[in-house]
């Protein structure tokens, strides 16, 4: 049972004459498309825009924190900066990042379908995303919003004079965009698998997207309800959250975190799917313990719904309910640990190469391990008292969301770039970018753990001078990190025209998406594929006769 790796000769590869990119021309053909691949590209462009917008705010925040005094911007401006950074990064970048771009592009091909189940709903979801973006940007242009991304009442309902309702509308609409994406993935996975593609032959990418989609569909409506209540309370004073009218301000916290904790898994699960694909491909080996990894995704999705109150340990919830939520939090940490160990074990006796996606995946494993373990600090009741609401928690969720999710996203974009565009990114530069990102990330966020234990509160415009050195280190790291993120943007754009032609399967990966031409034709498969092998079956790939590779035109 062994596989010899034979990478295809890329010099011979040619771009196919007809693909989804050139089947139709003109702006209208893009804006009215039902093709999941084109919609994925639309998403890719729009989330990249919002990523750099949110990143610019992060840069300004770090610049302000270079000095202990509040000297670069006014306090209100600073508050708006971190609020907009949070709203944009969470709702307009992280939540749609992997599912709406990479998931949209490859999930239907992976299951052997011609498109998602509801192509028009898929397009609608992108339009909703754009409307959400317009609302958010108009809240920004009109003067910003300073509630924090958590919209905490009664601050957001009674004490602020900014465009809270506009921003909340943006998030509300973005939620529906996310629900539609999730709905599409669930139905597609259930109903549109190719003959022979059983549940346990699905790539793990599909499993993790399926789990994340369940969370999107079940969790996001609660966010929508919460935001509507905030808007009604702000506009009409209905008094659901206002204690002077008999409302309960803690109710808002419960409702908000009932969505926003599962949202963490909405963000990270698709990233985990990417890592499974990348690790397997570059070790030329089936993922160690496929079933365990698949079910750990589902376990995370299920447990993820029952841990929300761990955001409220210090908020005066009953000590015994805190006890239950802490216990469940510990349980949800276990499936993540299983995944990390299974990925590491996948490398054992593999035949490993170190292309850029693999480097990003290694980065993910290191940073996500740190992010996950520091989550145990915060899930432990007593320790949470000291650490919550400090920079420790900022560092923790950036390790998970940026160190984990963004690394996974970049791994995925590099991994499927040849499939999406038909061209390779420059290997040397992209490895440099992967290293830069990793170093910059550690330098930015590691000092924040120390700051947090020292007690520096989050969302502070000014801070005591003894915290300055660590803040300077963090800002220095952010500069490096910024360069690490700009690099791919530049060379990826460059590669659209000048990149080497990829060929249909540059990585010798086993997924169905790699068995069709790059870029794929609009209908994905010329004839419906019949699946007669397990996922990650490199034996099957090695024995596959070359003429089976399908190219149109």
């Amino acid at each position, binding site marked *: 049972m062994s596989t010899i790796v034979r990478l295809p000769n890329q010099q011979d590869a040619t771009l196919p004459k007809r693909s989804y990119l050139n089947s139709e021309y003109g702006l209208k053909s893009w804006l009215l498309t039902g093709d999941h691949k084109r919609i994925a590209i639309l998403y890719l462009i729009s989330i990249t825009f919002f990523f750099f917008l949110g990143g610019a705010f992060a840069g300004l925040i770090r610049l302000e924190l270079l000095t202990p005094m509040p000297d670069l911007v006014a*306090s209100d401006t600073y508050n708006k900066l971190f609020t907009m950074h949070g709203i944009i990064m969470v709702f307009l970048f992280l939540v749609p990042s992997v599912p709406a771009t990479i998931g949209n592009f490859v999930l239907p091909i992976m299951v052997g379908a011609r498109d998602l189940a509801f192509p028009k709903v898929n397009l609608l979801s992108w339009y909703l995303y754009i409307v959400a973006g317009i609302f958010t940007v108009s809240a920004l242009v009109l003067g910003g919003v300073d509630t924090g991304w958590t919209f905490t009442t009664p601050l957001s309902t009674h004490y602020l004079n900014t465009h809270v309702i506009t921003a909340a509308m943006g998030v509300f609409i973005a939620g529906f965009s996310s629900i539609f994406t999730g709905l599409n993935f669930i139905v597609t996975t259930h109903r549109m698998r190719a003959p022979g593609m059983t549940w346990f032959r699905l790539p793990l990418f599909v499993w993790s997207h399926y789990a994340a989609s369940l969370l999107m569909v079940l969790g996001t409506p609660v966010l929508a309800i919460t935001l509507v209540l905030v808007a009604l309370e702000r506009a009409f004073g209905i008094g659901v959250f206002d204690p002077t009218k008999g409302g309960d301000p803690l109710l808002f916290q419960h409702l908000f975190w009932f969505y926003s904790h599962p949202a963490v898994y909405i963000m990270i699960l698709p990233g985990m799917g990417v890592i499974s694909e990348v690790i397997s491909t570059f070790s030329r080996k089936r993922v160690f313990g496929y079933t365990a990894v698949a079910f750990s995704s589902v376990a995370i999705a299920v447990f993820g719904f029952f841990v929300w109150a761990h955001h409220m340990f210090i908020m005066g919830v009953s000590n015994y309910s805190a006890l239950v939520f802490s216990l469940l939090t510990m349980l949800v940490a276990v499936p993540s640990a299983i995944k990390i160990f299974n990925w590491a074990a996948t490398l054992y006796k593999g035949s490993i190469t170190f292309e850029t996606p693999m480097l990003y995946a290694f980065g993910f494993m290191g940073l996500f391990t740190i992010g996950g373990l520091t989550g145990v600090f915060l899930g432990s009741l*007593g320790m949470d008292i000291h650490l919550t609401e400090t920079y420790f928690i900022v560092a923790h969720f950036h390790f998970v969301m940026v160190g984990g999710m963004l690394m996974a996203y970049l791994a995925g974009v590099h991994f499927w770039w040849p499939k999406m565009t038909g061209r390779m990114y420059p290997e040397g530069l992209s490895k440099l970018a992967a290293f830069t990102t990793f170093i910059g990330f550690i330098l930015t966020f590691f000092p924040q753990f120390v700051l947090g234990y020292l007690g520096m509160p989050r969302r502070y415009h000014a801070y005591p001078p003894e915290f300055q*050195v660590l803040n300077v280190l963090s800002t220095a790291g952010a500069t490096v990190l910024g360069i690490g993120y700009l690099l791919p943007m530049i060379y990826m754009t460059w590669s659209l025209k000048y990149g080497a032609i990829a060929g249909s399967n540059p990585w010798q990966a086993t997924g169905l998406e790699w068995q069709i031409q790059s870029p794929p034709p609009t209908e994905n498969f010329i004839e419906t594929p019949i699946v007669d092998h397990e996922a990650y079956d490199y034996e099957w790939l090695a024995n596959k006769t070359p003429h089976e590779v399908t190219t149109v035109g």
Partner: protein
Amino acid sequence: MHFFSPVLWQFLVKWLTEFALFPPEASAIAPYMDAFYFFLLLISLVGLVLVGLMVAGFSIMFRKEKNPQATHIEGSTLLEATWTIIPLALFMVCFVWGALLYFRIYNPPTNAMNIYIVGKQWMWKAEHPGGQHEINALHIPVDRDVQLTMISQDVFHSFSIPAFRVKREVIPGRYSTVWFRATQPGTYHLFCTQYCGTLHSAMIGDIVAMSPDDYQKWTVGSTSGQSLAQNGERLYASLGCNSCHSGTAGARGPNLAGIYGSKVTLEGGRTVTADDEFLRGSILNPTTHAMAGYAPIMPTYQGQVSEEGLIDLVEYIKGLDTNDRVHQTLNDSNFSPSQAGATGAAPNYRSRQLTGADQMPDAKPDTSTSKGMGPSPQ
């Protein structure tokens, strides 16, 4: 390095000379918290090194040049069970350890001295029972259990003392408590850690832990002359509370003497403990706190009494052992109108006070008529 950036060099030197990874350990709980922190750091380090070794080791051993052929391995139930059960067991240790600390920090000892904290945008107000008022500062004695009863008068705040390793959300409309026992005299940071608007980062202050002698001196030197209970007493009279809560037979409201800490039966049969929260709630939302056996005629005082005023009232009712004391202090207290303003009492306080006292010239506590009440006041 200093050729490259003198400023950065200066910072690094400064950091290395004043290297701090931990805040000062200034409370009784701090060493326990730090011990737990080291345990968590240790298991994190072990986990990280393990994953790091696996990834780096396998990458070197099984790189393509070394191992051109991958070997198919399906998985291993035994191995997977191992790395499910061992992390689970470690996380359970963290859970139990963390829970023990949590219950210790959030269950105050019964004999702790109590200080009230009111949070508002963007300052901390401390109200000592002896009548010392502070803003953005809190003076406390070392080696004594101190409980804080905290409330916000506007948005969520959070009261955090990193050197003591304690923190608790300060919530509008409800009391929350935290306690600590300072061990080292000194001045420590007080932060608001819950984002509360424009000047969130200016909502900071000093926690001054003092030796018992110094604290005694400070207490005497900074009192406003009126204890919280005395302020509450005046407010009680000026709002006319005693016209119903007179403690006499057939009074329209329940007898308040000794009510604090007792079990009371509400309209509808529910029994609750009359704690700070209950007393405050009864003043603001009487209908939802109506006690069995009394007509629900009490009006709400929402908007008429400030949070400080409510604290004064609560503090007064807490100390109310007998109705004798009500009358005694009402008649004896030296009242000056300038102090009335501070507690929100009306300028015509004196006349109302006298009226209130005149209505029940020599009322004795009559426990036989207090319906549905707790223990009899002595």
